[in-house]
């Protein structure tokens, strides 16, 4: 009885181990695949749902005074919309490239939108570094919210039909501006 009992319990034991292994692998392998597939991905980079859609309209006053600027009235020209602030170091870093591109491309409208900053500081910045394009004030941040801004700088490239063709969430270089402008000017 004892020998029969021990052989009867030994057989399913080996079977159980293989079963446990199979079930374990069933969970572990998909998890490993997901992990490996996303290794190179920046978890903070959330793709903007606005790319490929119509740019949210706005009417905002420029820093330093002047008549309000409406996005709709600019339809027909490619637009570079740069959300920035004077307290943002990458914004200062990309400013010369944006300025140079704005001076060189008279067929494109460059606009800054001020993000959580004071008009006096903006004017001081513009006096110090120069600006080839106006920066618009967004005092209650509604335009920033409409564009899904989560930090600065964020730059949108809008084509002649008013559709957002690209969004960049870091400091732009001259080559990159040209590259995106080609898409927007098409």
């Amino acid at each position, binding site marked *: 009885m*004892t020998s029969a009992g021990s052989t009867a319990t030994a057989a*399913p034991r080996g079977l159980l181990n293989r079963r446990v292994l199979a079930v374990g692998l069933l969970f572990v392998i998909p998890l490993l695949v997901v992990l490996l597939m996303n290794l190179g991905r920046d978890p903070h980079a959330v793709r903007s749902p606005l790319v490929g859609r119509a740019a949210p309209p706005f009417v905002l006053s420029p820093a330093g005074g002047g008549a309000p600027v409406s996005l709709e009235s600019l339809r027909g020209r490619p637009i570079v919309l740069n959300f920035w602030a004077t307290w943002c170091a990458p914004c200062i870093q990309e400013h010369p490239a944006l300025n140079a591109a704005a001076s060189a491309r008279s067929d494109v409208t460059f606009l800054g939108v001020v993000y959580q900053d004071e008009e006096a500081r903006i004017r001081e910045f513009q006096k110090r570094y120069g600006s080839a394009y106006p920066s618009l004030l967004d005092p209650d941040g509604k335009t920033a919210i409409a564009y899904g801004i989560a930090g600065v700088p964020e730059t949108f490239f809008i084509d002649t039909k008013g559709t957002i063709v690209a969004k960049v969430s870091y400091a732009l270089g001259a080559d990159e501006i040209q590259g995106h402008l080609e898409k927007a000017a098409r």
Partner: protein
Amino acid sequence: MRGLRAALVAGVLGAATMSSGQEAKPAADPSTVVGPPRAGALTGDALEKRTHEVAALLRCPVCQGLSVADSPSTMATNMRGQVRDLVAAGYDQEQILAYFERSYGEFVRLQPPLRGVNWLVWLAPIVGLLGGGAVVWWALRRPHAGDAVTTEPLGEVPGRDTLPEDSGLAPFVLRIRERAYGWPGGVSPGAKTAAEPVA
């Protein structure tokens, strides 16, 4: 250069304000994005309460895991202001969440909506709990390998007078037993046959 820049700025402004007479005003009319308001307009305490409830469902995009209701950041303050405006205008919770989702993506919702792959988030814990329960039930129910072993006879149990086979060690064991238990010669009083110490 300065002059050129000034001219450009003036040109841009001129072009932008050609259809002028407009006042600076907030972005897109929400009704073009989420349709006409579906709830009644609120005021006073009801407005503040509803604003807080909806803001608690929105993720503050500049924070780490904070809702718009809980974050002290300027961004969250602006978003709360917009939620309040939308609630006051009579938009319902789903319309307000959809309005922010259009700008920020599904990421802005703290509770993933029940659609597509999100079902996994809601169902996986239930499936895991039921599956785990099933495994525990199955493991407790099946006969244990150990049950069979306990029924087997234990075989020869060494007696208290057993001596090691090593003839050099045996006298020491007897001396220890004599000292420890007080047995004369190291042999237990009840022993049938006296252990023979190896010479």
